[in-house]
């Protein structure tokens, strides 16, 4: 491409034609991909900053008006002020403030953080020793265990969902224990995160040389001490990746929340809360504000840890 002869002696060889066409196609492709990926993201933001009335009249307004953006931020100035009536109307007119304060999104955020945090902690506590056992110890049934985990990973969530639903209803009936709350569903979330955590950690542990551990064992350290002081510190990058993925899966999870939490609104997670908002007489623009609130943490995580995450993804194959 660099060795271009002068214009007059250009020969349109096949190489040149195809390279030129390729470049044109590439530029067009970049534009096209940006339209289908970045534009929806932008449009979500756009709609979340406009009053519904404006969207109805002018659906294709590409940039929100300045006064509409100001209205969204208006409650910031009045909260804690001395005019509650004015503040209430400012909140109603601001999509974000309304969703957070009037539609209980603060509660949903709390629930989602609790569930996702617990799911990360439990997944790691369970998966690290198990992954260690599978990669470092010989025992009958090891292969069956490894393959079994993979099979579970391919299995449909809804098939597990029905009997668990029946089970939870009966437990509540028989023992009076209501498991359909954020803590109860955390256990169920493990069905989708634990196989992933195990699989990714297993692949990583296989790449860590055993020499250090073996040396420590010969020196008389016990196994659990070795896991704690050698294996885990060496695997920190993988553990961090797994933690982030498990967090994102739990944060995005919808089906189990729908099956198990639908009857108790105070326990709703963000995705369920947002989906339920759809059924009510709520301006569509509020839905978009809710979508932005759910999406931003995930985008931020991905933005900061992208390299980490893409490497982990191709190593483990994260289900979506």
């Amino acid at each position: 491409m660099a060795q271009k002869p002068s214009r007059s002696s250009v020969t349109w060889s096949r190489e040149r034609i195809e390279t030129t066409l390729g470049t044109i196609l590439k530029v067009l492709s970049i534009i096209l991909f940006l339209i289908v990926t970045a534009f929806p993201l932008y449009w979500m933001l756009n709609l979340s900053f406009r009053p519904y009335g404006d969207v109805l009249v002018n659906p294709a307004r590409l940039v929100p008006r300045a006064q509409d953006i100001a209205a969204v931020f208006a409650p910031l100035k009045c909260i804690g002020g001395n005019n509650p009536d004015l503040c209430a109307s400012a909140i109603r007119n601001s999509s974000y403030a309304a969703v957070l304060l009037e539609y209980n999104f603060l509660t949903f955020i709390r629930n989602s953080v609790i569930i996702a945090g617990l799911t990360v902690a439990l997944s790691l506590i369970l998966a690290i020793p198990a992954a260690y056992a599978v990669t470092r110890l010989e025992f009958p049934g090891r292969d069956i265990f490894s393959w079994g985990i993979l099979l579970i990973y391919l299995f449909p969530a809804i098939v597990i969902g029905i009997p668990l639903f029946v089970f939870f209803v009966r437990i509540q009936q028989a023992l009076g224990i209501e498991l359909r709350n954020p803590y109860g569903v955390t256990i169920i979330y493990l069905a989708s995160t634990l196989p992933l955590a195990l699989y990714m950690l297993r692949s990583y542990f296989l790449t860590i040389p055993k020499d250090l551990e073996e040396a420590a064992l010969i020196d008389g350290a016990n196994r659990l001490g070795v896991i704690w002081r050698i294996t885990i510190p060496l695997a920190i990058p993988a553990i961090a990746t797994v933690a982030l993925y498990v967090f994102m899966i739990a944060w995005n999870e919808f089906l189990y929340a729908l099956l198990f939490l639908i009857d108790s609104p105070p326990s709703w997670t963000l995705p369920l809360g947002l989906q339920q908002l759809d059924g009510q007489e709520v301006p569509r623009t509020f839905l978009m504000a809710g979508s932005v609130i759910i999406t931003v943490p995930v985008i931020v995580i991905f933005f900061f840890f992208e390299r980490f995450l893409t490497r982990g993804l191709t190593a483990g194959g994260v289900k979506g």
Partner: protein
Amino acid sequence: MATQSDVASGVVRRRGLSLKQRHAALAYTLLLPTLLVISLIVIFPMLWNVVLSFQLIRLRDLPTINLFDLSNLSLKNYATATGITLGGAEATSTAAGRRFWEALRVTFIYTIASTVLAILLGLWAALVVRDKFPGRNIFRGFLLFPYVAPVVSLAFIWKLMLDKNIGIVNAMGTRLGLPSLSFLTTRALPVHLFGLEVTLPLALITVIAFEAWHYFPFAFLFLLARMQAIPEEMYEAAKVDGASPLQRLWYITLPHLSAVMGTLFLLRFIWTFNKFEDIFLLNGGAAGTEVLTLQIYNWLFARRNVGVSAAVAVILAVILSILALIYLRWFLPEEE
């Protein structure tokens, strides 16, 4: 297996039997919590689901019925679900059976089409991103957005963008003189193409497009990783031999990707086959988009029939087990 037992016997010879036993004991201890959790939330429900599929249980009976009464198991639920008379158990209505076969057909079309489209889009994106250009990393970040964002948000964005009255897509379309469409609720759209009248299953096409868009970044990342592992010398050599860019793509790049594409296809096929929330959130399975997972949900909560719902779930699980076995048998060993 052979190497494993060799290693094991070597250990036995060198250090005596107790070490092997100690290892096994420690391994089981480390695995025990995981095994317990998995048994409780995966294996036990899966097996119980099979039992439920042979029992006649309605949602309202759930708190009172004796679930452990296994005396009157029958194939009635399967008959009702599929509309086929099984072992003397007749279907209660033929309409339900027709819905099942329709859902099975839709599930296969939806899964195959969106999987193939997602992989092709992923391949295209990987080819675009392979060589450096200004802003490549940011571009790559945008490409990942549909994959990492919560599906609830993605579905709502699509619903609003495709809305008949306030959607940007229809707003732009009408400016170009196109009719305004209800993308997610139109079962059949008659279209005149070159004098031929074709009916398009618009809602199904839309959910397929959504699914392909949602998951193409997954294929993109795998294909890009594989592409970047192809040695540069191969391209140099081909160039010296006079191979054009298109020939290099066809004879070098694509053959290197075929194994990954096979794995991707099967993985995505399995995951799309049991996907529930995407269509549920987009249009609830309306207008000819009811896939099997949605039918399971509808049997449970709309028709409030636990038994039939479990029966359809078993059918889904059986189809998936076959696919999963294919995956483990033929595709995975190649990758490792």
